[in-house]
């Protein structure tokens, strides 16, 4: 297939880590989840047909593994309060406004119901509506409806 793990990590590591962050708040568990996703992506490349883009393929595996991760860790909290998810040891005042916004956005994305969260995450990653539908197995209409609802919810909570 010609894909090297180092290349996949370089190209999709950040995307995977952001998706992982919407399923797991604990930074250590997040890293494990990222590893798990990368492992699944890498080993699944032998059956990757290339009908969709590699990015779409990676995203759908990341979401699936994320949901599976929640199943296996269902006794642990799915998300942490905003303050707990900030960089360890850093004082609130020292954190840049942008970083705060980002953490707030992540926190709000985590609180979306799963169908909206998946759509929102992919849209925030810059996926087009068709790619979102392909990735999640939705009809384009259904994807668009969910996307509108997710956007409206996020805009509302972020403007508060």
């Amino acid at each position, binding site marked *: 297939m010609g894909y090297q793990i180092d290349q996949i990590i370089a190209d999709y*590591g*950040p995307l995977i880590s*952001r998706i992982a*962050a919407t399923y797991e708040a604990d*930074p250590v568990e997040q890293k494990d989840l990222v590893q798990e996703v990368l492992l699944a992506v890498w*080993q699944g490349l032998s*059956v990757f047909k290339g009908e969709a883009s590699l990015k779409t393929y990676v995203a759908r595996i990341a979401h699936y593994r994320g949901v599976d991760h929640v*199943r296996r860790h269902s006794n642990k909290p799915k998300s942490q309060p905003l303050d707990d998810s900030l960089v360890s040891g850093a004082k609130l005042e020292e954190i840049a406004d942008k970083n705060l916004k980002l953490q707030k*956005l992540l926190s709000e994305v985590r609180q979306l119901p799963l169908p909206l969260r998946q759509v929102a995450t992919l849209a925030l*990653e810059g996926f087009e509506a068709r790619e979102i539908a392909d990735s999640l197995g939705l009809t384009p209409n259904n994807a668009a409806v969910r996307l509108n609802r997710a956007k409206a919810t996020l805009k509302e909570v972020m403007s508060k």
Partner: protein
Amino acid sequence: MTQENQQNKPDLDWQEMSSLWQQDGFANDLNMDQLATSIKRKALQMKMMLALEWLISLVGVIVGLLVYLKYDSLFETAVGIVTIAASLFMGWFGYKNRRNTWQAKDETFSAMVDLSIKRAKAAISYAKMNLYTAPMAIIFVKLAYDHRSKDFDTMAPEKASNLQMLFGLAMVFIVAAVIWSIWYWVRNKRNLNYWLEIKGQLTEK
């Protein structure tokens, strides 16, 4: 402003959120080299585990064949066949089980959820099959013990205790398999409920 104009208006809030999101804020801590090494190590571990399982299966098949070919009695022939069948099953099950972890199929998220539901159902069926065959296995072991002990009790009393221990171990194994099956059943029932709930959420209007 007309409705059409409003629709054509660039989604500035969303673009801002999207660029904020893609800042890699959550990915900054990732050590790519360490990650690559760790993944390669994990992949190797999985392959080694599978190789070990296959090796054990192969040894089981060889032992079963030796027993089958060496002895003529019905009992030893049955033991040989059961050993071969159990070893082959173990090898196949190990492969099938791991393949799911190795190869994430090129399917949509919904299809993956459906597959998980199927897997959980199959696992529950497997656990049920184990539980239902356990009484038969106990009866088989008991009959086999009674059959063999007749020869040993009078002709070779010292071997009788060995035989008793051997069949005792077989019983312990069956009981352990029953306990494992119950645990496996409960765990997969929970998994099934979880995936059904996810499926329900996804199909919600």
